[in-house]
């Protein structure tokens, strides 16, 4: 029990629980606010990275498509080159 009390005291100091006394009993309750604030920060930055990295994917694809010479088809990746539909080699058969 002393060990448990010590741990609860640490949680109280960290602002994660609050404690009240009632005779010989001490009630501990979880403080939601600090937990919620941290969860919101994590969620906000997760969304930020998710959006940014999706945009990064599109940016990298566009940059690599632009770097690719339009008149070279021999070793191009298996991605349809939608940006230049009028390319002479496209319909060659």
């Amino acid at each position, binding site marked *: *029990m*002393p*060990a*448990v*009390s010590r*741990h*609860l005291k*640490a*949680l109280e*100091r*960290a*602002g*994660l629980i609050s404690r009240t*006394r009632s005779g*010989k*009993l*001490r*009630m*501990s*309750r979880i403080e939601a606010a*600090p937990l919620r*604030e*941290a969860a919101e*920060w*994590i969620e*906000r*930055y*997760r969304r*930020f*990275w998710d*959006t*940014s*990295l999706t*945009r*990064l*994917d*599109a*940016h*990298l*694809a566009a*940059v*690599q498509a632009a770097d690719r010479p339009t008149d070279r088809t021999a070793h191009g990746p298996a991605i349809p080159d939608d940006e230049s539909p009028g390319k002479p080699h496209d319909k060659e058969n």
Partner: protein
Amino acid sequence: MDSDKPQIVISRVVDAPRELVYRAFTDPDHLAAWWGPIGNSLPREEMDFDVRPGGHQRWTEVFPAQPGLRVAVRIDLTDVVDGELLDGVAHVTGQLPEGIEPHETRMRVEFHDEADGRTRLEIRQWLPGRVVGPADQGWNEAFSKLDATLRNAHPVAVDVEV
């Protein structure tokens, strides 16, 4: 704080060679094309990049649809390995969206080769100290104590004063 575990861990493979992906993070013209929410804009004349250990990356984010917002970002770079690593503390200030205070947050991005000319990003982020450490006790310490408490005891909601 730096030895603590990051609160955000993201591992993501992108379909481009490592050098190009690294450039997307360290060249202002590249970064402006993808950083942040859709609809933002990073004015080129307000971008100032000096990518090296002890250097910095600075820019401003504006939002044409929300003229009241103006987010200033300054990353003080601590560790930089060309093509491999960016680690630093981002200072976010300016006219921020409702509910967001100016803050500092450490970000670390590692760039790793993957098969077929792709790159794996390992992103780590540490939340501002005041968020994760509401008092003098650190967040992680509190949780490790909680773990220990739950391991060693009945799941008590009431303990008896001794």
